[in-house]
């Protein structure tokens, strides 16, 4: 039974799914009727007859002039908002979860077997969105299926790495034109030998070319200027254009500019395909430097039974929500712990000494502390220190200390 990986791109207005079967080189889009173009699932919710309707049914209803539309679900989820309909309060978080369950149901109905894994990919995974995805994961429909999520940047580089070698013989660029406006991502290959080192640079041109740009704006001209600025002197072997903003074929002169010495591709399924590849990949040693990822490994100087050395609490190089870890230590006649932050690219080390005060006097090696690293978002996090005491011999005080930190990002 070849179950495969289902990549699910949650766009602002539409979601789409693609399936990559094991052994196959390329994913295929999941379509919802015999029309090969119907791979988009609208992120539409409407209210009619005392209940909420989702996805394609909601779109049909609204097209027929029925029901009340509930819009901008993703945006309101990010802001943790709720809506009152007919006197009842609905959290956008719950609406989003139900919408995604409906989308996934439709996608699963089109498959021969349920996938072994679903990878959701989104433009930006904020703390509120992370909380919502964790709730979504627990829905019954996902029983027996591994669910993971990742940002667009990861999907993009997974996609690029799975194209023909000549397409990434130099660096790779990508323009995404969605509700956030024009965005540019560039994948720079810093080192091609193991471990592979990749840098993903993101430039936001949303203010220069918004999604709902004024009709008077010459999009083609503006995009050409953006492309020129974004690419600069970089050597790109390929450029991928993605996002519904590129529909209607307005990009003409700008495309000519881009095609000069580069291969250019236009398609809507880059992130869905990329999510499939992301889910399929064996996790080799690839160092990725991007704004979504935490560049630092975090640990302490400790004695591991043989010698004193750095002991890792949390490994960096992953998206902020995936960087976490916990270890326990015994204090041996000291109140001080040395925390060490190592930049995975530069090997630069930052050492910070924390003094744990306010604990009762106990004999050496009878104060056990639990050290946890957690991130609140892609820039801030904390080391949480919990006093565990020493069983009933020297009971815990239940004291908790928090040492917050801000991640320094290279521009």
């Amino acid at each position, binding site marked *: 039974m070849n179950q495969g990986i289902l990549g699910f791109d949650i766009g602002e207005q539409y979601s789409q799914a693609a399936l990559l079967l094991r052994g196959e080189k390329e994913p295929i889009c999941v379509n919802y009727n015999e029309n090969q173009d119907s791979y988009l699932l609208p992120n539409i919710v409407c209210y009619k007859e005392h209940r909420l309707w989702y996805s394609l049914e909601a779109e049909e209803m609204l097209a027929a002039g029925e029901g009340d539309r509930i819009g901008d679900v993703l945006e309101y989820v990010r802001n943790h908002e709720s809506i009152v309909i007919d006197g009842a309060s609905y959290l956008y978080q719950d609406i989003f979860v139900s919408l995604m369950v409906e989308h996934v149901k439709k996608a699963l109905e089109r498959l021969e077997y349920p996938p072994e894994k679903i990878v959701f990919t989104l433009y930006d995974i904020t703390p509120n969105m992370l909380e919502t995805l964790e709730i979504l994961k627990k829905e019954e429909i996902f029983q027996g299926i591994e669910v993971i999520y990742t940002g667009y940047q990861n999907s993009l580089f997974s996609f690029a790495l799975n194209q023909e070698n000549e397409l990434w013989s130099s660096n790779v660029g990508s323009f995404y034109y969605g509700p956030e406006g024009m965005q540019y991502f560039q994948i720079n290959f810093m080192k091609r030998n193991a471990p592979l080192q990749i840098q993903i640079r993101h430039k936001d041109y949303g203010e220069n070319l918004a999604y709902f740009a004024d009709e008077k704006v010459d999009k083609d001209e503006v995009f050409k200027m953006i492309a020129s600025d974004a690419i600069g002197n970089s050597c790109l072997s390929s450029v991928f254009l993605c996002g519904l903003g590129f529909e209607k074929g307005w990009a003409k002169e700008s495309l000519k500019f881009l095609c000069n010495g580069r291969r250019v591709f236009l398609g809507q399924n880059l992130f869905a395909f990329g999510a499939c590849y992301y889910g399929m990949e064996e996790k080799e040693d690839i160092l990725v430097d991007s704004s979504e990822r935490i560049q630092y490994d975090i640990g302490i100087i400790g004695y591991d039974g043989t010698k004193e050395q750095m002991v890792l609490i949390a490994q960096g190089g992953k998206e902020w929500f995936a960087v976490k870890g916990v*270890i326990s230590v015994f204090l041996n006649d000291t109140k001080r712990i040395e925390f060490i932050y190592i930049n995975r690219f530069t090997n630069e080390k930052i050492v910070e000494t924390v003094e744990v005060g306010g604990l009762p006097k106990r004999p050496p090696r009878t104060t056990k502390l639990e050290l946890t690293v957690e991130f609140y978002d892609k820039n801030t996090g904390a080391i949480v220190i919990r006093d565990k005491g020493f069983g009933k011999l020297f009971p815990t005080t239940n004291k908790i200390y928090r040492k917050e930190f801000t991640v320094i990002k290279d521009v």
Partner: protein
Amino acid sequence: MGNVIICQTQEGKKPYIFENARIEVYSYEELCYYIYYNIPMLDENTITEKLLQWISEELNLSELSEKIRCRMESQNEVSLYQTILGYRSYFTKQEIEVFLVSFEEYQLLTPFEKQKKKADSLLLYKRYMKAFHIYETIAMQMGEKENMDQEEKIFLGNIYHNMAVCQGKNLEWEQAKQNFRKAYALNKNTESLKEYFFILKLSAKEEEMQEEEKKFCLSEEFFLDIQDEIEDSEKEIKGMEVYKKFEYAIYNKEHGKYFDYSRRIDAMLEQWKMELKEQWI
């Protein structure tokens, strides 16, 4: 060894209980600590099949439990402890050497000395009645001996001292007073004498105290020390949980909340009853 030691083992959900002292341990490190610092409590019943099962199932250290099981056949008790202590690096090699020396030295003690050490450990773990019973047995057996040398007198004096401590912890003031007196008569240790006068002071026997002061011809400095220690103890007591509970109870009573007052007092009494029961387990 460094100042911060990485914990490399998991904690059990259920503890292992050493029955002789009713001590619960939840982890490998606590097990090592108990063995290392409680030589008098270790005997041929310390390493049992039940302990090995706990090590294997709760701590997930089946390799260690197997190693111990293999060594059990040799019936060399100290090698079993050495196996446990040396399995991970909670204690260094040098510290384990010290333990082995202490263990050997303990085996060379006289039966009375061994019993006293065991009772001292029970006293430390607040098993006052069990400790008292052992001290009392030693005192009775030693008391039968004639012509004790100075060392034996000091030893016996220390036994009476600790008996008095056990009794004092259980508010048996009169008996504690008698035993502190006996202790000082034998060991001539000012600590025993101080404790004797503490009891007199705490039991408000002012007249008796004045008579005793004259008998011992003690300096003013001695009584000032006692007074200071009593004052320090009073401050310490006010920070204790049990004192705060008592204050709350009195507050309830003063404000006519008799139900709450009774409830608080009953809870405290139940706690003390349980602690008293545990002394005998």
